[in-house]
């Protein structure tokens, strides 16, 4: 009886430790979205500045990076230069910014001051953000050339994170 209790106890303890270690090794910013592996939700939004409508279909054929952000979001200031620089260096990748809960005036001022190298779209009622399951900004989605979401990242983007996720979109 004691031996059985010992074996069962050790087995349960090891299982709990295994779950703990798996959890510790996981990046908390790498959110598991139910949309990963599925076609990206369609959208058709107006670009800030030009007023041109850009839809998801126009992004097909190249890997795409869709970055949800807002001018009131502090980490968005931090990641903006990273995205602008990478968009300049990677002409084979479609970069799109989607701003929600914000005004066009503030976005224009932000982009004038900090530069821009890709279209920024205004999601006026947050419907596109909801369709993508955005909780807080910044959140970034990586799409392959077929328009399938291959990765989602929550938090300020760095070049390393961008390139490692982009590699999945390139496959």
């Amino acid at each position, binding site marked *: *009886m004691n031996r059985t209790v010992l074996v069962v106890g050790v087995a349960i303890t090891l299982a709990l430790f295994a779950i703990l270690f798996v959890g510790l090794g996981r990046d908390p910013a790498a959110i*598991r*979205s*139910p*949309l990963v592996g599925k*076609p990206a*939700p*369609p*959208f*058709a*939004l107006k670009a800030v500045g030009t007023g041109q409508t850009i839809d998801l279909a126009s992004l097909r054929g190249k890997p795409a990076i869709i970055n949800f952000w807002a001018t009131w979001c502090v980490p968005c200031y931090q990641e903006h230069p990273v995205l602008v620089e990478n968009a300049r260096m990677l002409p084979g990748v479609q970069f799109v910014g989607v701003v*929600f*809960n914000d005004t066009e005036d503030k976005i224009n001022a932000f982009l004038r001051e900090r530069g821009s190298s890709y279209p920024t779209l205004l999601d006026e*009622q*947050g*419907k*596109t*953000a*909801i*369709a*993508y*399951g*955005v*909780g*807080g900004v910044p959140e970034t989605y990586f799409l392959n050339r077929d328009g399938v979401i291959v990765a989602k990242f929550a938090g300020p983007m760095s070049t390393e994170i961008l390139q490692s996720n982009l590699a999945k979109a390139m496959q």
Partner: protein
Amino acid sequence: MILLLLTVALNAPPQGTPLSGPALEQRTYEVASLLRCPVCQGMSVADSPSTVALDMKQQVRELLARGYTQEQILAYFEQSYGQFVLLKPRNRLIWILPILILVAGAIVVVTTAKKLSQPSTTDDRQPTTDAYISRVRELVDK
């Protein structure tokens, strides 16, 4: 724009009756109460003042006004945010499993306690030639 999103997210046409007026507001609150605000700590979309929750609540209102049912609307949000967004998870096992584990644990405890409280009917002691051990056993058995 809305149509474009809904044709993908809500594969079936609206299965309910379009609502309006006070009935729409009442149902909006009820359905929004079943959705978790993704940026809050344990608050429902109905109760949260955050902008994301307000956007979600507005979307619930629009879907109800178009005739979508509660089930269709919950499925739409679940498709984007996962089961996390549902304040009442669909998987009943989540509610039943803790009770099952508690009952199983209670059975193990009771069974073990019963076994420990019963006096041993067999003498499983090792034979010994040690005089001291033999004397101790005699005293214990008295």
